[in-house]
Each structure stands twice: as C-alpha cells, then as structure tokens.
C-alpha cells in the first residue's frame, strides 16, 4: 500500500462558491479539453455518437433540488472533482504506488506508468472523483492542472487550473490553503467554507462556500412599506402633488 507524505508545504486546492455557480458546465468542458491533450493519456469517449455515450471527465456538475420547509424549492448546482484530501484513501489503497500525494503542494496524482488499472482507488474514494479511462485502462483524476499552474510556457496570469480560468461567473477560486492570507483561505473564513463529508476523516483540501439565504419572507410589518404610502387619495390630489413636486425640481 502507498504512504502519504507526513505533511505538505502547500495545500493547493479549489474553493467552489455554491452561491454563484449557475451550473453551466463551462468548468467541465474546459477541464476535458485541457486534460485530454495534457497530462497522461487522453480522456477518451466511448460510443460518442451512439446510444450510450460515455467518456472520461475529471470534473462534473451535479444538480440537486432542495425544498426548505417555508420557502420555495431551490436548485443547487454542485461541481465536483478530486478534493485532494490530506488523508487521501485513494492513495493509501494503491497497491503499486501509482497514486500519490505530492509533498510540495498536496496535489493528488496518478503516475500512469505505474497504474495497473485495478480500480481500487476509485472504490476507496468516497466522493466518486476518479474515473477509469476505458480506452487506456488507467485511472484518471483531477490534476489541479499541475501542467498549467507552474508552467513557464504560459503567461503568469494563466497559471491556474483550466476550470478556474474559464468559469464565467467567478464561482471557482484556486489557491494555497496552508497560507492563511491567501484568497482561498480568506474566502473560506469570510463565507463559512465547509468540507464535503467531514465525518469521513479524509480532510479534503477543496472547500465549498454555502449558498446564501434566499427567498426571505416578507415581514408582517414591512420596513419598506412607508415608501409606498400614496401621495394622494384621488386623481385631483395626485395632480396637486405632481404640481408641487414639479415646483421643487
């Protein structure tokens, strides 16, 4: 079985804002597009124009309905990819050492040369974040775009994961959670960022920001109600108000 590093210098990961994600799938396809031509084997698609098209994606968006007791139902869009856990069960379960967590930045990767395609890691991951590529028989997963974030052939501004660069609503943020002053640490502190299924003890690095409260009921005594006080009770009164109001401008 494979060991995790005792600690990592950085904890690179994503903050995903569920209050802002509109569920557009931009991140899903940008990820597919970058990673099929980048790290390791391409992300293949089986039966792409047929009855059951099924391909390898490293990031997917799921949508859930939530029905609060006293408010209308809501739709929450929930993008999900590898959470780069500190206690990553997908690494420790790996029989060949192919799955590993990088000591310098905490990114969990698969060394495809060493991967035997046994699928144990996908079984061990409680988040369903790994996908076996059916063409190559190797395990694929989010690399946090390790071939972008340090890439000196890219302009500095582009050294971020493809999903973050493309997100139209700005719902995805990339940074170092080990640094309390980083953008991602601050967002988590300010907005109550949370771990996905913390009870499993996997210590995910990626965090989610919760949706803000929505559809607040109109108070019985609406504080804005005085703004709608009628200026007059009849048509003549309205013209009188209009005349006075015009005089003031």
């Amino acid at each position: 079985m494979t060991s995790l590093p005792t600690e990592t210098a950085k904890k690179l990961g994503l903050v995903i804002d569920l209050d802002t994600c509109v569920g557009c799938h931009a991140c899903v396809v940008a990820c597919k597009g970058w990673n099929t031509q980048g790290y390791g084997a391409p992300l293949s698609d089986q039966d792409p124009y047929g009855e059951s098209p099924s391909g390898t994606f490293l990031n997917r968006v799921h949508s859930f309905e939530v029905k609060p007791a006293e408010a209308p139902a809501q739709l929450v869009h929930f993008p999900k990819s590898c959470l780069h856990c500190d206690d990553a069960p997908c690494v420790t379960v790996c029989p060949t050492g192919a799955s590993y967590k990088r000591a310098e930045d905490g990114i969990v990767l698969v060394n495809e040369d060493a991967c035997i395609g046994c699928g144990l890691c996908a079984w061990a991951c409680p988040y369903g974040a790994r996908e076996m590529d059916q063409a190559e028989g190797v395990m694929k997963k989010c690399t946090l775009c390790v071939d972008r974030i340090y890439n000196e052939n890219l302009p500095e501004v582009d050294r971020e994961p493809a999903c973050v660069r493309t997100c139209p609503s700005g719902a995805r943020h990339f940074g170092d959670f080990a640094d309390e002053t980083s953008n991602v640490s601050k967002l988590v502190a300010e907005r109550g960022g949370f771990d996905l299924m913390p009870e499993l003890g996997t210590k995910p690095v990626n965090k989610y920001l919760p949706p803000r409260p929505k559809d607040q009921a109109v108070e019985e005594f609406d504080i804005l109600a005085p703004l709608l006080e009628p200026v007059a009770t009849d048509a003549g009164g309205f013209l009188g108000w209009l005349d006075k109001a015009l005089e003031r401008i």
Partner: protein
Amino acid sequence: MKHTQPQLDTSPEVSDEIRKTTCYMCACRCGINVHMKSGKVSYIEGNRDHPVNKGVLCAKGSAGIMQINAPSRLKAPLKRVGPRGSGAFEEISWDEALEMATSRMSHLRETAPEKLAFFTGRDQSQSLTSFFAQGFGTPNYAAHGGFCSVNMAAAGIYTMGGAFWEFGQPDWDRTKLFMIFGVAEDHDSNPIKMGLGKLKERGAKIIGVNPIRSGYNAIADEWVGITPGTDGLFILALIHCLIKAGKVDLEYLNRYTNSPVLVNCDETHPEHGLFLRDDDGKMQVLDRTSGKPVPFDGKGVKPDMAGTYRNAGVTYRPVFQLLAEKYLGEENSPEAVADRCGISAERIRHIASELAFTAFEEEITIDQPWTDFRGEKHDKMIGRPVSFHAMRGISAHSNGFQTCRALHMLQILLGSVEVPGGFRFKPPYPKPPEAHPKPHCKVTPGAALDGPHLGYPMGPEHLALREDGSAARIDKAFTWENPMSAHGMMHMVISNAHAGDPYKIDTLFLYMANMAWNSSMNTKAVMEMLTDKDENGEYVIPNIIYSDAYSSEMVAYADLVLPDTTYLERHDCISLLDRPISEAEAMSDSIRWPVIEPDRDVRGFQSVVIDLGARLGLPGFVDDNGDALYKDYADYMVNHQRRPGVGPLAGFRGKDGQGKGRGEVNPGQLDAYIENGGFWVDHIPTEAQFFKPWNAAYQDWAVERGIYDSIQPYVFNLYSEPMQKFRLAAEGRGKIQPPDHLREQVKATMDPLPIWYPPFEGTRVNEAEYPYHALTQRPMAMYHSWGTQNAWLRQIHGRNPLYVSAEIWKEQGFKEGDWAKVSSAHGEITVPVLLMEALNGKTVWTWNAIGKRKGAWALDEKAPEANEGFLLNHLIHELLPPKGDGLRWSNSDPVTGQAAWFDLRVNVTRTDAITASEPSFGTIKSPIGQGPNEIKVGAK
C-alpha cells in the same frame, strides 16, 4: 510503502501557436484563443483581452474542438436524387451546384423576383444577406428574429431606442438591485454570468422572475415563479405602486422622455391621441413659466406635466397624466393581479418598495460634468442603481410586445436608463425608431428592391402592402395582422408558401435554419408541406435550396444543398452594421478568419452569396462591366463600403490604419484585426459614457465614428405615437384602412401605452381542458440543435424529460419513471416525465431542441435524442385554433408577429410505460454516414 513521488515536467510545451478568432458555438460571439499543435486545433480557451468574454468561456465554446471534427459535417454540394425528405442525394461539383442555383434564380429575377424567398437562421451576416436579397429584388427576406425575440428588440427600439443584449446591458459594476425576467439560461451567455458574478461579489441583490428556477434563477436571491404570460400584469402592478407613491423620477421624465408632451384628448378629432406639434413638426410641451406650448427641446424649457392646454376647443394633456390615470386604476393593483400572476400582493408590493428604495434612497453620483442636447450643463451624473434584463420568456407570447414595453416603462419611470447603476446602451445604440429604415417591398422585375426589407414602420403608410391591400411579403410581415414586424416572420414562410397565401413562390432559399425540425412550429405538418405535391405531381413548393454546415434534419428536404464551413474554417465579420458586440463603454467589432482550412469540398456561405450575386449580376456585386466586385467574403469585408468611408468593419480604416468608424478602405485591415486578437475596440470618452441619447459629447462622438451621419438626440417614448396612428386607422380614420376583420384586434392591441391582455391561445381553448402551461428552455451547454452532434456536450444534455411541477405531479399521480401524454388543442405527444419542485405549479417544461430525427446529425438510430428525446413543437401550431370565420390567424403577437411559442396550453396525463417518445418519424438516410465508436482527442 514509504512516500515517494516521480519527477514531473510541470512546464510542458503548451502549443505551437495561438490563433485568435471569434467563437460561434452560440450567438454571443466571445473571443477565443485557438491553440494549434502540428497544424491541428488542440485546445480552445477564452481570450482575456476580448471585450465580450474577457477570458472566460462557456461549455459550448470549450467544446468547439468537437464541432470541427464532428462527423455530421457536410462534405460536398448535394443534389437530391430520391424523393424529398428521404435523404437520398448525390455529391456534385460546386460549378454544377452554383449553375443549378443561378439558372433558376436568374429567370425568377427577370420575371417575378418575389418568387424567391430567402430566409436565414441564426447567422451573423444579415448585413450581407439582406444586401443580396435587396439587389435581387425580392421582398421576401428576413432572418430568424420573428421566431426568436423580435418583441424584445422592437419594443425596446420603439420605446427607448434599444433593448437588451446587443443593444445594452446593466451597469454591472454599480447596480445594486437587478431583476431578470424570462431569461432561460442564455442570451447573452457569458456576459450575464460574468455580470451575476460581479453582483454576487458586491452583495447586490438579484431577483429572478421566471416560472422555472434553473440556471440564473437558481442563484437569484429571490425567485418569483410567475405564471407564464402574466409578466405584463406583474410589471404594471409594480408601476401602479410606484406611481401611487410618487416614486418616479419626475425630473428625468420631464427632461428625457415624452412624459410632458401634449396629447390631443378630443376623441372626435382626426388627430385624437396624437401629439401637438408646431409647424416644424416639433412635439410641444406646456411651458411652466409662460403657460404656453413650446417645442420640447428648447433650452431652459420647464415642462409642466401637471397642466392642461386648450386650443380651438381641443384639450391637450401631457402624456404623464394619461399614463398616471391609466395605471392608478385599481385593476392594476397588486391585489387585482396576484392570483393570475401566482404572486402574492404582499410580495408584489415589497418588490415595488425595494425598487423605490434602491432607486431613490440609494442614489449614486459620479463626479463627471456633462452637457445635454438642450445645451444645459450638469456638474455630475446622477444614477439610480436598479437594472433589468429580459429575453424570450416575456417576449415569446402574443402579449409580448406590450409586456416588453411595460418593462421598459418601468425602467424609465425609475429614471434608470442610461444612468450610472442602471441600464446602459451599447453603440451603435441608442438609436430611436425614426432613425431606423422603413420596410420596403416594391418589386420591379430585373431590378433591385426599392430599399431595405426590414425596418420600423411609423404609421400605416409604411406597411408592406400591395396596391390591392394584400400582403406584399410571403410571411405577411408589416401587414395589419402584425404591423410592426420589424424582423419579419420566418415561422410563417413555409406555411404561407404551401398555402399560396398571399401568393405562390418558386424557390425557398434557406440558410442555417432547421425549419424541418426544431425551428418550426407544427413540425410534422411542416415536413408534409415541404414534401406535398400538387395535382400535376410537382412539389407545391417547387424548389428548395438549403445551406448548412451540418447534416441537420432540414438537409433532407432540400433539392440542392450548399455545404457551409465550420466557424474555424471561415471569414466572418461581426459588424456594427449588423448585430454588434459593443460594450456600454466602447464600440467594438470583430472577425472570424480561417484558423484551419476545410478538409472537405465546402465553402463559407457568405462567399457563396457573393459568388451568386456576381453570377446573377446583382447591383453591388458586379462593376459596370458586369465583373465580380469581390473575390470572396474576406474581400467584401475589407472593400465594401455601405456609405462613403463606412464599411462592414469599423476598425483600422484608412491608409494609415488609424481610422475609427470612418475612413478609406485599408487593404491591410484583416491583418490588423488578426494582429489585434480578432477584434477592435474604441472607448467612448468619459464624459460621453452615460445619458447617451441626450449627451452632446456622445452625440458628437457617434457622428465622428460614423454611427450617425448627424446628431440625433431624442426623448424616450413612454407613449408610442406610431401605435396610436395604427389605432386611429382602425377607428376608420385616414386613407390606409385595415380590413374589417382586423379592426378590433388593432384597436385592442395597439394601445400607445403598455397594456396587458391574456395570451391568445388561452382565450381560444377551454382552460379546464388544457389547464397547464408548457415551456422550453435552452440549456447553457447547448445551442439549439447544434449541441447534439458534439460528443462532449451530448454527454451533458443528451436527454430531455418533461419536467413536471409538484402540483401537477400529485394531481396526475405520477411516479418515477412514468411517461405522460401531453396534449394541446393541436396535437399530442408521449414523453418521459420527471418531478421538479422549483417550478411554477401550473407549468411543465423541457429542454429545447434535444430531440432529434433518426438519421440526422450523424447520430446512431438508437441515440437517446432520437428515441426518448422529443420536441414540444408538435403541440404548437403556427396558426391559432380556428374560430369559425374561415380565416388563418397566426399564432403570433398581433403587434410584431413574434411567434407565440410560450402561449402553449396543455393537459398532461399518465400513460402506461412505453420506451420511445411519440410521434416518431422514419429514419432519414444520412448523407455523411455515422460517427466513430470511440474518440481520443489529443492522443499523442
């Protein structure tokens, strides 16, 4: 095993080259960086410098690589060899194809040019295609606006000189309260998402008004799950509350709108309801100081909206008084509309109070002096940080035009248009209705039409009628049935051509419009009309030419197919003469250029149009010797001049390439665009950035840039005088008279002040029999029928169940996995259902255009899109249910002719489990075979 890790190259080569062009995976026209490896496209990302998307890119855009390798791409010109609709074709050469097209079209031009009907879909070259049709001489030309969102565009132009999306945008950086009405999940895709992101970052409030809470509405702070077709009622109730409380911007109304303009209120007068004008035709307002009528635009005029004026026995009252009287009525109170809208009166009132609070208590100012068109100086810019956006949800109803007008009226009463924090126009808008062309329809065999086809009628004299009063156009646009049909009515073309009403045509020439499937109402009947034969065994629509890049359902119905390129293989210009991409702070245009060469025998459609124009010897396409003026579209983009110094592209003009908007032809213009990332931007001077219709600095700048030829300040039309002119005619006044059967409709619907009336279909059917509303939405990751051929996108949206509200689910006793019969007054379909709670209780809906015909788009016959997938279109007729008068009443808005897709009323009942949607149709023979079983994009 101790922790070890391999050495990793974290700086691999990214690509050999980046080519910057414009996306065309939908109509938003974002800038893209196309990465090339070994001469092939390897990756597509957003262009950070581009004004539209500033680096981001949606799912469709990133999936562009799968569009250019899609197996559905047509490969060569096709000639039909089997019966229409079978899909049996043989490949022919371009010479043969163009000869076939021109020999027939040339004859038509010399004898009866109107027998060519040329209609284009979601293309972005209308400035060229309309120029071709005009030169040809047929009145029968339009693009797809009539079945898309013409109500939104036309109501915006008539009311304030621009609408949403291409016309203007919220001031995303300053607005504090944003209301979005009836926007599925798209238009304009990335800019709205970017804008919503900005609002979220600043904590600004978002109110989503939509029967369906998905997409943008899912993240709204407050969701108003309105009953379809009642948005106008809701908006007028908000207006009622605001006027009643005096929460309107009187100063703004006085200065910048026709609120103070005097209206003839004598019902017996021939000019009843028209404006008082002086001898120069200038609208008159009552001057508060002198008590006399004076021109509205005089310097120092203080209009008196509270007074009345009497002259020669006629009473004239300011627009504002008529408006206030109309909306103060109790029939517009929240209590009166709540049930019909499905929104409580308290909530309507609360939203009105929030609008009032934000507009007037949270006023913002920018310390920027400016001068208005009357010559008055203002030391700062005052803003009302309330903004709105709306699209098809409110416009695709038969009451859509008036609803869109009502929304613009709300914006204007709050003083929130063209002010900081409000809604801002994008050049070349603002542009008042008077400044737009008028419709033209005069046919002369062998010669050009007498002017542009489409425009904005200002009265009955601008209708497109023949001498006997019948429709001049095959789609009956600009007739008494729908006088202000500014974008034409493409959805009526096939039906009218088949019926020979108002006349028969010979050649139907379509581009990029899937009229035999998802772009038509009443799809099954349209397929029958396309294949129907007359008593002589000839097709009723004799000749059909179709151009498309892909093997869409429509291809099978053409006699001649002209294969187009994909968007990365062509030149295009996103022109200020067409559908511009400007921003509120800058004018902008862009190009596409062939970043890859086609590997098939296909040609860009625009180059084909130019070739056809030259072969036919059309004016503007040949010189005095009859020789072609342009080699191809690229040549036209650079060398064509619409007016001296003004051409398709505004940037890098003149010999030195420095000309902005105006300037001589620059042979190096396309290279300059490519060098600049495929686009051109010119920022509006700071003092000209707000109050554009009235801002002297903006007006001067716009003339300098060739947007206008002379300054044209104007005031907003809360009251629409052109509409009143049509109504006067319907009352029997004037020489041009509507037919009697349309008088009541014109009187009832052409109200010069916004009104609400129930959507037509609901009034023609028994509501107890069809108690529910049925809608479609376009998903963010798909663009109409285009997405399905894309292997990545169809994995995201490969299925379209009918989403059913909790209320209906319970009423009908549905359970998971059930199927339902959905019936309308017109037809019946059988479809899979799925429960959705975040949905108006009386509504069902599905994704638009996921359902496919077997054999189309190079998909396997077993594809879910061609089996479980379905279209609601089968339930929607292009005509309203007959009312016994023998007439064909179009299922459209009576003002603009906009297709009333969302008026649909249905019943939904459980049916025993089946496995494929009904109706289903036979398999079309694919002219390009089918796709591979596995793909590995980017394999090394």
